[in-house]
């Protein structure tokens, strides 16, 4: 892995830790990596996300909606909950990667040694078939397959 991509991945994982802390999570998951990618000023990943109409706030909104919808399946509504929750308040910032984040990194960067690029990390997240990220994208009306194909095309253009 080149120094540039290593620095990028480290910056994304660091920011993802902040996102996980904000949520009160004990591990960094794929959705935190996606939020972190949306905050990193890297031209190709920003282009891929914005072409799909996604930005940091849009992803956060989609994740929150997915959370509330999933609670709704169990008949639980945050609006009717009388408990005051302050997610993440005072919790230490997580540094450990959870299962979904590990999978995303393996899928995106695992087999490519030297030639990995930031888009590969985004691709690794988007290639998840199940879980919070696919469900949140669906909630936001984003076609995950199209977005994934667009990222692959972007990578192919850069390879030429």
């Amino acid at each position, binding site marked *: 892995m080149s120094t540039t991509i290593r620095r990028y991945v480290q910056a994304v994982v660091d920011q993802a830790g902040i996102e996980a802390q904000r949520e009160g999570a004990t591990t960094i998951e794929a959705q935190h990596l996606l939020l972190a990618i949306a905050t990193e000023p890297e031209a190709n990943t920003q282009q891929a996300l914005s072409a799909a109409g996604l930005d940091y706030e849009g992803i956060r909104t989609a994740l929150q909606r997915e959370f509330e919808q*999933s609670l709704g*399946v169990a008949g639980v509504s945050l609006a009717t909950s009388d408990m005051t929750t*302050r997610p993440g308040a*005072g*919790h230490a910032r997580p540094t450990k990667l959870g299962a979904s984040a590990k999978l995303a990194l393996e899928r995106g960067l695992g087999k490519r040694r030297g030639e990995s690029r930031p888009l590969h990390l985004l691709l690794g997240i988007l290639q998840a078939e199940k879980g*919070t990220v696919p469900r949140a994208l669906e909630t936001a009306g984003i076609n995950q397959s199209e977005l994934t194909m667009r990222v692959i095309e972007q990578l192919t253009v850069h390879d030429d």
Partner: protein
Amino acid sequence: MSVEVQHSEDPGAALAAVTALRRLADQLEDSAVERAMRSGWSWPQVAEALGVTRQAVHKKHAKRLVAAGVALRRR
């Protein structure tokens, strides 16, 4: 808060509900432990109420509560 699991054709929706409930339970635990400690509960009382050891509850919440300015009773 009532919990009534809806029957969904989609197993993904049911699994996502489990994930969301775990996350909500963690948030509720944080809030409830903080309220109890601010009300003067001891670690053993909170641990007993949660059905865990006092070491477990102390390890999970002590730093956070100190950071939040909660005056903690001795263990």
